[in-house]
């Protein structure tokens, strides 16, 4: 089954791209093509001019430069928060134990989780787990971070803390592709938004474009439904 068709876009340094659209439209598949967890049958992905989809390329080295944050966190259950963050540094980047630990602590500070460094994922709330998940990706100093509905598995009261971390990252110039239905977040930091439907780009443009004058009926309807379902998170963004 062909999931994605004719999708093409570019992402510049420091930009935030927000991808949204109905369930099953291929948003996760798109992200998973970008880091080759689901290698695309056709098409190419370039990272700073290098073709990731080239079979000759060292895909592990490429993935180390692409962070991924999962809907269900996927923290390593047998490792403490700090070891979740340092394992990539140690095993992939070859950091010595102490240096990896120090750097992991620093990164945990940026997501305000340093106090929980020695806790196991199961001892943390969903919002805390996701912040560790973000730290895990961040620690690798990736060129880009992919977020797959990072807040959609969270209880409403925990969404804010995660979005805040993501906002801070965006404002600090982190390059990100974010699949989310948090339109407040999109409004605040997206440089471009992409509406995906049935595996194709139905419409793309700036947040202003989408919130003031979306072209397609489908997008209008979808945005209205989001408002009803989620309310808008503008309170979060001052």
């Amino acid at each position, binding site marked *: 089954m062909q999931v994605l068709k004719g999708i093409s876009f570019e992402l510049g340094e420091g930009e935030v791209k927000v991808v949204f659209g109905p369930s099953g439209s291929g948003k996760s598949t798109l992200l998973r093509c970008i880091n080759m967890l689901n290698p695309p049958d056709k098409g190419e992905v370039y990272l700073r001019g290098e073709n990731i989809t080239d079979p000759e390329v060292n895909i*592990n080295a490429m993935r180390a430069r692409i962070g991924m944050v999962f809907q269900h966190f996927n923290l390593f259950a047998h490792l403490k928060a700090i070891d979740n963050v340092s*394992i990539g540094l140690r095993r*992939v980047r070859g950091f010595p134990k102490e240096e990896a630990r120090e750097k992991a602590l620093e990164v945990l500070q940026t997501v305000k989780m340093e106090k929980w460094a020695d806790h196991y994922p199961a001892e943390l709330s969903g919002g805390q787990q996701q912040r560790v998940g973000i730290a895990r990706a961040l620690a690798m100093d990736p060129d880009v971070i992919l977020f797959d509905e990072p807040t959609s598995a969270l209880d409403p009261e925990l969404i804010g803390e995660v979005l805040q971390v993501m906002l801070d990252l965006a404002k600090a110039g982190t390059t990100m592709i974010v699949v989310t239905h948090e339109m407040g977040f999109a409004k605040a930091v997206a440089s471009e938004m992409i509406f995906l439907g049935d595996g194709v780009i139905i419409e793309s443009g700036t947040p202003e474009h989408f919130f003031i004058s979306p072209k397609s009926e489908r997008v209008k309807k979808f945005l209205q439904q989001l408002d009803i379902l989620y309310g808008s998170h503008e309170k979060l963004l001052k």
Partner: protein
Amino acid sequence: MSDIPSLSEIIFYILRRGLYHTLLLTALGLLIGFILGISLALIRLYGAKELAWFSSGYEKLFRGIPLIVLIYVFAFGLPDIFWYIDPLELRLGGVVLALSLRSAAYQSQIFRGAILSVNPGQMEAARALGMKGSQAFRHVVMPQALRLAVPSWSNEYAVVIKDSSFASAIGIIELTQAAYFVSVSFQEIWALSYLILAILYFLFTYPITRIFGERQSKKLKKFGMGGG
């Protein structure tokens, strides 16, 4: 032993004569079974098709033969081949082989199940970080699979220690054979000697399966490992 021995004398006698071989057979059976079992599990999961078939056939074969038959085959089959080794050691070796080859079949299933029950998202997250498949397996999947295997593995320990009693059938002096000696020397208390034997086996198994079975299961659940 001529007068009827006291309770503690019987216990002490059974342990002194039999404990060494019971523990030796159990330890070797489990250890060799562990090494073979993990290998079989890996082959069955990740090996080439023919190797996976072999592994699966091995499991079926050794689960389908009564242990006592395996013991007879190895304990009496080996001496003809290795006629220059001491017969007692050969018989011991035969029982170790029987116990460990059969345990390998069960342990292979235990570890295959444990590896499969590690949440696939764990492997994905590891690969997404840039780990090679082998690194992800070693640092993320295997550590969790081993923890997940502990409850079934403690059950396998109980099976092997109890089944080491079959060694008495070929005259190896382990706990069961020692109790048998007591029962024939003092026929007035033969029932008591076997009752004591039963309690000893229970004491060697129950606490272990309790701690590593039930408690570990609860802990794994709490840590959110497995399933999903």
